[in-house]
């Protein structure tokens, strides 16, 4: 069965630091990968998605992710974080049955 794993449970950064959150997906099935963000008290929002094409995907709010097939990875990056990026970040993919499978989530805390 397809799965997604996120390496970091909690990341703490200072403003202006660079961010990279890890996401690995299991082998098999069609590639479809997503990053969602959940700001405190708000609903899950789509940051970016990858289905095919250019492996470097640009998303909203300055986020990007790189699909590396050989490493089964889809890491999320941002060159310079802001306090407003404090949130929980989820990597996800569909399994063969069409269910969206989420990773455990990474809580990002940005210190002002």
């Amino acid at each position, binding site marked *: 069965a397809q799965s997604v794993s996120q390496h970091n449970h909690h990341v703490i950064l200072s403003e202006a630091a660079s961010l990279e959150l890890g996401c690995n997906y299991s082998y098999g099935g069609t590639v479809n990968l997503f990053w969602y963000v959940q700001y405190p008290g708000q*609903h*899950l929002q789509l940051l970016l998605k990858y289905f095919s094409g250019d492996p470097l995907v640009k998303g909203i709010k300055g986020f990007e992710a790189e699909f590396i097939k050989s490493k089964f990875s889809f890491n999320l990056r941002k060159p310079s974080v802001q306090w407003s990026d404090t949130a929980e970040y989820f990597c996800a993919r569909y399994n063969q049955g069409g269910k969206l499978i989420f990773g455990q989530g990474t809580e990002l805390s940005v210190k002002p």
Partner: protein
Amino acid sequence: DAGVTQSPTHLIKTRGQQVTLRCSPISGHKSVSWYQQVLGQGPQFIFQYYEKEERGRGNFPDRFSARQFPNYSSELNVNALLLGDSALYLCASSRPGTGEETQYFGPGTRLLVL
């Protein structure tokens, strides 16, 4: 355009009771999915409906049921509530058949079972 809407936003129930949660998809989206999110974990898939038919079911007991109406809105029902059913219930809508199906989430219903 309006996003996915859910009602109620919060709900408190006692063990053994039944609850119904409601979801309205984005206009033009014919598929609705339900997820349970327990604190500190990623959302877990419960159901997906497309064109009023169940398209998929997650690993949840039969106490959980759902349906989709002709206007594509959906209800999630949970019977015989347990303390462990306390969670954020998320609804997502999507437009299947595009080749790049993407799910958009509502604000959720926070259920507390006492």
